């Protein structure tokens, strides 16, 4: 076999490698292809414009994918819980804003396509400086130092004018006139493609990083840092390098943020964004490389759409969070992975029926729950803001008993039904796994 490969020569070998890449990494390539064409679904042919909302949301997804993956370099791969990861996104963003302003004024003619690299280097520089102290500790002490750093940098961002621009932040203009491809970057769709490019590069680099000795040692230090020491590596240096590189990628995300919104304020370094990184990464799943990508897509979609429709986003986020940590600590990716042995055994079809039976009661519960929350919300906050609760042109008055009763019936009835359906699903799941085990024994 190997002799045949040698004889057929280098071109075939390269083709074989490319084929292997296509075979092994097809989900990534498919995602990339999808990312490239998806804005055209919302293209309005009569006006010749893209939907601003969709493009802005897609751009945000790209930025958050890099951010969540860089966060998982700490949390999932190195076992370091950070409460201040947004600091590096923000500082990368501020750095980029200044560089873009310098490019605009002509003092630093750097093409716009390369400014994310500058933002990444900014994030890297700050991560080297702050990480030198933070990575001296691990576990809770590390988490608390990062919490302190986050609060510290947020306060500084509000205090200092020269670099952070105080409360107003730093504004910039991405139409610098310096471009590798001669693009103006006035329409957001051009920036979106820039984001897709940099996201692809960053994801590939981060994926490759997990296969380097550093990535492997980060895993070792996460699992057992004492044994990692015996191998001959200094866990502190492993933490330090991992932290610095994660800051680099967060800086790239910050740079893309700056190019998208053309303003950087203290929000980009503040705790809410750090919490968001934790949310996306955990809900997506920390144990799988692609987990945070799923989490980032889901959270941005939910955040954009739910916050358009309702002002109770925090409640839904909280409930989603609690459900995930209680029932699916492996995140969404963990849930998918649970099906892998069943899929390999070719018995996934057996679960389709039980899954379908879950759908209706689950929908009832969700609708009932959303109705209760929205009724509460419209009773107090909505009333204070003078809004009324309309559902497809029907105004619902939260002060009457009807909607409350409907919500209660949906919630209670759906709940009982869902419990029953989950029981059936559990039994079906157990049967299928038993069968697979039994066939495994025979083989």
């Amino acid at each position, binding site marked *: 076999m190997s002799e045949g490969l040698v004889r057929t020569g280098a071109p075939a070998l390269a083709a074989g490698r490319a084929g292997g890449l296509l075979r092994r990494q097809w989900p990534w390539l498919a995602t990339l292809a999808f990312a490239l064409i998806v804005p055209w679904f919302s293209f309005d042919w009569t006006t010749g414009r893209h939907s601003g909302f969709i493009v802005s949301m897609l751009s945000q997804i790209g930025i958050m994918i890099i951010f969540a993956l860089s966060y998982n370099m700490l949390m999932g791969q190195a076992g370091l819980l950070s409460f201040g990861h947004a600091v590096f996104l923000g500082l990368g963003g501020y750095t980029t804003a200044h560089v873009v302003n310098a490019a605009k004024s002509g003092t630093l003619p750097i093409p716009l396509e390369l400014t994310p690299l500058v933002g990444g280097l900014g994030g890297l520089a700050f991560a080297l400086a702050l990480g030198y102290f933070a990575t001296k500790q691990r576990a*809770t002490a590390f988490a608390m130092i990062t919490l*302190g750093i986050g609060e510290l940098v947020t306060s500084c961002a509000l205090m200092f004018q020269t670099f952070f621009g105080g409360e107003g932040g730093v504004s910039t203009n991405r139409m610098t006139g310096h471009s590798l491809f001669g693009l103006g970057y006035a329409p957001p769709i051009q920036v979106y493609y820039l984001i897709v490019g940099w996201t692809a590069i960053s994801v590939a680099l981060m994926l490759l990083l997990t296969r380097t000795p550093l990535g492997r040692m980060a895993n070792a230090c996460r699992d057992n840092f004492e044994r990692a020491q015996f191998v001959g590596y200094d866990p502190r240096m492993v933490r330090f390098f991992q932290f610095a590189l994660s800051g680099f990628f967060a800086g790239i995300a910050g740079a893309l943020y700056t190019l998208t919104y053309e303003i950087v304020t203290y929000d980009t370094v503040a705790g809410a964004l750090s919490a968001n990184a934790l949310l996306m990464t955990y809900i997506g799943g920390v144990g799988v490389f692609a987990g945070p990508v799923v989490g980032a897509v889901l959270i941005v979609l939910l955040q954009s759409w739910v916050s358009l429709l309702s002002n109770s986003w925090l409640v839904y986020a*909280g409930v989603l969070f609690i459900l995930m940590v209680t029932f699916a600590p492996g995140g969404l990716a963990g849930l998918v992975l649970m099906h892998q042995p069943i899929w390999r055994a070719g018995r996934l079809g057996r679960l389709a029926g039980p899954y379908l039976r879950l759908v209706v009661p689950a929908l009832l519960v969700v609708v009932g729950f959303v109705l209760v929350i929205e009724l509460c919300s419209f009773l107090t906050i909505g009333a204070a803001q003078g809004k009324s609760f309309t559902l497809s042109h029907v105004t619902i008055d939260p002060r009457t008993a009807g909607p409350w009763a409907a919500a209660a019936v949906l919630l209670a009835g759906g709940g009982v039904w869902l419990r029953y359906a989950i029981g059936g699903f559990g039994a079906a799941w157990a049967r299928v796994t038993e069968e697979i085990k039994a066939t495994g024994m025979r083989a």
Partner: protein
Amino acid sequence: MEVLLVSLLNGLVYGMLLFMLASGLTLIFSMMGVLNFAHASMYMLGAYFAFSVSRVIGFWPALVVAPVLCGGLGALIEMYALRRVHKNGHIAELLFTVGLAFIIEKSVQMAWGLLPVAYRVPAVLDRPLFHVYGSNFHAYRGFMLLVSAVMFGLIWLLLTRTRIGLVIQAALTHPDMVGALGHNVPRVFTIVFAGGSALAGLAGVIGGNYLVTEPSMAVTMGPIVFVVVVFGGLGSLAGCFIASLIMGLVQTFAVVLDVSFADLLAHLGLKVTSATPLAEFLTIPLPRVGALLPYLMLILVLLLKPRGLMGTRDT
């Protein structure tokens, strides 16, 4: 001199309030390993409960009812939710409390509105207690000091003089051994979580009208309480007490002392102008840095002593 004395008293009041919050958190944190992000939410709930209860039956019953409500809620959370999450590890527990904090914040907004509520100091205590060098010391601050001191005494007695207190103390450092000795550790956890929540609620009752009762009060108080707990060191109530007082005093004095590095340098005969390097950094007055100081101190302490000021075990 008068500034010094008044600030000392004010710092003491704030520090004791911090201690009331932090003592519960340090017990929960040390014993269960849970970084409870919902602890400050309990403080907020305490203030709002007290506001609602005091409108119906007055402030004094609310002083008891609101902490009891918070404690009950804490017990329910521990028994029916946190215990299930426990098997999924510490990060899952932490994220659970983050989710809980989200829900509590929004629920408070739904129940009591987005704006601060008019939760006021009771009329009896709404007067100056005594005069120091021409400035008043408010009677309510004296009352806060009294409540915190009594609370401190009671916790100390409970932990050192009762059986359950000794079990809790043992479980702080050796939870597995305590379980092996046949004590019902989950029940101790519930008691500690409920007790900590009740203490946070009490801090809310007496702090809500002293500061301000609004939906963002948990977010503003939360990080400071974490800082106090970690600064003081895990498993050490004494460290927590000292840390609370230090933080209270530092923050109070930082507001009062209107100086900057530039003033210091001026004493040494160096004049800072806008052309001096780092001029912006040097001319920042101390009151503006005040909010920053606790975090700076936290980072310094953790770098020098990863266990905190008086911590007895690793984090």
